[in-house]
């Protein structure tokens, strides 16, 4: 029963606290909402709501220049918005961490989500981002921890794709 109540978003929050990630930006996605809520309740974490995902890349890089660690939360549809911005952490060797909630894969209802869902890992890899993936709840904490350490210890960019299988596919009803 305890397993059912446990929310994997708590494991991500625990990594943020453990690694002193104190700025979290996002274009909201339902998959990230419990994590966003946890961060907003925490006075030590600045939560910045963006108007477009690419601004989270610049924000993270500026925060790093000022000595703070951050993470960008977005849905897979936002990854495409970030491509040119990802040159910034790449060429400046700034650690950059993003957590991507996946759409367009497991039981997707909305066809419009499929192109960017399929493109997400390819686009990230094309920009030299190290891509990690969590398909099961128990993988989330260790994977986010590993990705964050990869980013902050090696001054590279890392993304964790949080699978739709784990998040649950949204089903819409007409009318």
């Amino acid at each position: 029963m305890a397993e059912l109540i446990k929310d994997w978003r708590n494991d991500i929050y625990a990594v943020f606290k453990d690694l002193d990630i104190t700025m979290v930006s996002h274009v909201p996605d339902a998959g990230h909402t419990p994590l966003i809520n946890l961060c907003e309740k925490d006075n030590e974490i600045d939560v910045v709501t963006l108007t477009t995902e690419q601004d989270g890349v610049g924000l993270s890089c500026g925060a790093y220049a000022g000595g703070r660690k951050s993470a960008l939360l977005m849905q897979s549809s936002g990854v495409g918005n970030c491509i040119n911005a990802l040159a910034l952490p790449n060429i400046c060797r700034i650690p950059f961490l993003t957590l991507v909630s996946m759409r367009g894969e497991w039981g997707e209802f909305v066809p419009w989500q499929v192109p960017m869902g399929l493109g997400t890992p390819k686009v990230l890899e094309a920009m030299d981002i190290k891509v990690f993936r969590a398909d099961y709840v128990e993988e989330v904490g260790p994977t986010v921890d590993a990705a964050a350490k990869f980013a902050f210890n090696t001054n590279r960019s890392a993304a964790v794709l949080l699978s739709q299988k784990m998040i649950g596919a949204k089903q819409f009803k007409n009318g």
Partner: protein
Amino acid sequence: MIDRRPFVQKILKDRKDNLRVVSGIGTSTWDLMSAGDNKGNFGFIGAMGQSIPFALGLAKAQPDMRVLLFTGDGDTLMSLGSIATIANHPVSNLTIVVLDNESYVETGSQPTATAGKTDLQLIAEGSGISNSYTVTSEEDYEKIMNTIYKEEGPSLIVIKCQAKATPLVFPHSFDGSVSMNRFKETMKI
């Protein structure tokens, strides 16, 4: 209309130790570097549209410093949503100076939207940046300096400039990691 390069140099003359200066892609970076090498400068040479969110992240991370961003109308127009983000996640230590020459000078002086119907001061105001004004004469120099060092931000100043090509003045390194590490070291004082 203001001659931007000497005016940027004038703003940065005798700069205070608590000032960190960022510049957006293109002429703004050459302008900043023309004022002399300084470890407290970070100039974009790419990633168009990213200088405004970068300045926000820096200002949030270093609340005791004053952060000044020089950027162009082209860079700003690519990132208008970031102005709304700044208005709603305000930082009191950030001044954005848009050197608005109404054209993409570096690529052949094609007109930007500000050559047409678009007014960046009104966009800033409408986004919720209450301290926003347009400067067309160097007589406003003291007002600008007061905004940069003293006023509660965030502020956005549009400086209307002549559109003319100026000599390129490069930063001490084109390697972004060298520039970033050098800039980051200045945060430790």
